[in-house]
């Protein structure tokens, strides 16, 4: 058979023969003709009055499991209504096929449990509650495991796995430097331009320096960097751990006597907690540089007066407000990412869902943590 060969169209002709109905099938009865065959057979089935039906398959040029199943199904359906269906064929291959597909339970696929919708709703609520309980337990277990590992590492520093930490640091910090700096540079410039546009109207454009300096150092630098890191490293952590979970690599670690928290999670968390403050610092520099350039070009504030004004506006404390938040945000991002990664189940869809959840949750938590810090710093007057 060549690729272009066409098969004959299937057909089913009914003829009366006394008390017996003779159906003559012809053409190809294969899966590719499945839709036509099914239509032919249901049309005939609708108008049946005879109690004995013969189906002549001698003119059928091709039969496969789909065609055989349709015939078999016809026979079973008619038998339920007390009618007898017989097949006439010479080809013994048809016999093998028809017997192969003679499976009653295929007709009645296992029913899905549907039940009362209100009960289902209650069951859903219950299941969600249990899931929440399990999640909480998992978070606590992970924190406990981490604490235990850190404590153990105090006496055996090698268990901190400095090499893993270095590798993770390389990936989550060094790799992020260019994009974080570029983004902050642009944001710094935009803040200065936007602020300058309005302050210029009052002749107060020099305060753009105070505005962008304080805004960048206290809030923008750390928030934007944390969001970028959540999207960049957080999603990577979830995907890595998740696919390792899918392919039983995590289980393999476990039975080899390696602890997942120690080998995979702690190095990532520590690396991220070191990386984020550094990234925030670099982001701050880049943003101030961007702001300075904009001030120079757009507001004619020369670099010397920009720097002088900046020195008057911000102190080391301003910088520290931003940088101090970074390790906490890193911890949140890392914890959420690893947690979600460990929750991945067997399917690719589950991996995708947990990666999304990981990024969304950690960005949200970054904002929440920032809010908590704002309240905290305000109350201690920092």
């Amino acid at each position, binding site marked *: 058979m060549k690729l272009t060969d066409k098969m004959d169209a299937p057909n089913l002709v009914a003829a009366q023969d006394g008390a017996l109905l003779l159906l003559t099938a012809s053409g190809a009865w294969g*899966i590719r003709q499945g839709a036509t065959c099914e239509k032919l057979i249901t049309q005939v089935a609708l108008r049946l009055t005879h109690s004995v039906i013969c189906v002549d398959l001698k003119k059928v040029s091709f039969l496969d499991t789909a065609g055989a199943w349709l015939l078999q199904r016809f026979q079973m359906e008619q038998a339920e209504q007390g009618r007898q269906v017989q097949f006439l064929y010479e080809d013994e291959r048809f016999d093998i*096929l028809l017997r192969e597909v003679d499976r009653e*339970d295929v007709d009645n696929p*296992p029913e899905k449990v549907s039940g009362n919708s209100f009960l289902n709703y209650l069951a859903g609520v219950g299941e969600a509650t249990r899931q929440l309980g399990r999640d909480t337990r998992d978070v606590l277990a992970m924190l406990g495991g981490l604490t235990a590992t850190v404590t153990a590492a105090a006496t055996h520093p090698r268990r901190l796995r400095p090499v893993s930490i270095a590798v993770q640091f390389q990936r989550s910090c060094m790799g992020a430097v260019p994009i974080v700096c570029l983004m902050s540079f642009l944001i710094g410039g935009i803040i200065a331009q936007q602020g300058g546009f309005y302050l210029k109207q009052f002749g107060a454009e020099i305060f753009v320096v105070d505005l962008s300096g304080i805004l960048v150092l206290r809030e923008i630098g750390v928030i934007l960097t944390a969001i970028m890191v959540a999207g960049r490293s957080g999603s990577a952590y979830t995907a890595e751990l998740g696919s390792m979970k899918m392919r039983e690599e995590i289980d393999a670690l476990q039975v080899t006597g390696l602890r997942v928290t120690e080998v995979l999670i702690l190095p990532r968390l520590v690396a991220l907690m070191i990386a984020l403050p550094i990234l925030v610092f670099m982001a701050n520099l880049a943003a101030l540089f961007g702001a300075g350039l904009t001030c120079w070009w757009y507001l004619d504030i020369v670099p010397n007066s920009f720097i002088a004004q900046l020195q008057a506006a911000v102190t080391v404390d301003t910088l520290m407000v931003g940088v101090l938040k970074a390790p906490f945000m890193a911890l949140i991002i890392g914890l959420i990412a690893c947690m979600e990664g460990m929750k991945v*189940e*067997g*399917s690719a*869809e*589950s991996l995708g869902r947990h990666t999304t959840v990981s990024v969304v949750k950690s960005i949200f938590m970054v904002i929440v943590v920032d809010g908590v810090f704002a309240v905290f710093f305000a109350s201690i007057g920092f």
Partner: protein
Amino acid sequence: MGQERTEPVSGQGTGRDLVDEREVLLRARDVTVGFGQKLILENLNLDVYRGEVLGFVGASGTGKSVLMRTVLGLNPRRSGSIEVFGQDYDEATDDMRREIEKRWGVLFQQGALFSSLTVKQNVQVPLREHLKLSARLRDELALLKIEMVGLPLDAAEKLPSELSGGMIKRAALARSLAMDPDLLFLDEPTSGLDPIGAAEFDDLIVKLKETLGLTVYMVTHDLDSLHSICDRIAVLSERRVLVEGTIEDMMQVEHPWVKSYFRGARALKRV
């Protein structure tokens, strides 16, 4: 190489004239495949005839899976040509490729089930994609295939991650059979199956071959399958098809690997 070369033995027992007249479904010529510096296959030639079950053997890592993937157009090759159903796969238009893909079924070594779909949905993927069947018929055909490969019906609603290794193999076989293909590629279909399951598998393949004229390209290490269902056996070694022929031919070959494979302690134990 100073090593002596074994000449290919080709179907002496079955009568050459008959063999030559049969239609070639799959033709590989001078296929060379390599990764980086390393050549895995070199100038490999292979014919698969309509209606036969070709068993492919070779030591682990000789490139059986690579050859299968190359034939399927999944691996780039350095040179050579591959014809499927008399059509050069490289020169085929998109429509022709679709037509080819409708006519072959593939079982990958690791099953390669879609992890987000249930077993039943997995089997239905080709049906949905290529045919306009009613939902009922599609369901029934999927369940039929699931039963035929020996899975219990309640496996139909399970996700691949909830299956055992052997069940994954069976589910993947059900998917490869979904379209009642003309040409079936199987990569180690019975590894991971219990011996009874493997025997049932052999039965199913023979039945489909006899009734549908199925052509099977099967990588296998199962000596029972090789003896009971393979019409022809090809041995992959030294980056090419070293010998091919019937199981009786294999028994005559003096190449050390082939000899220990077919006439070694393990092979003789089964007699």
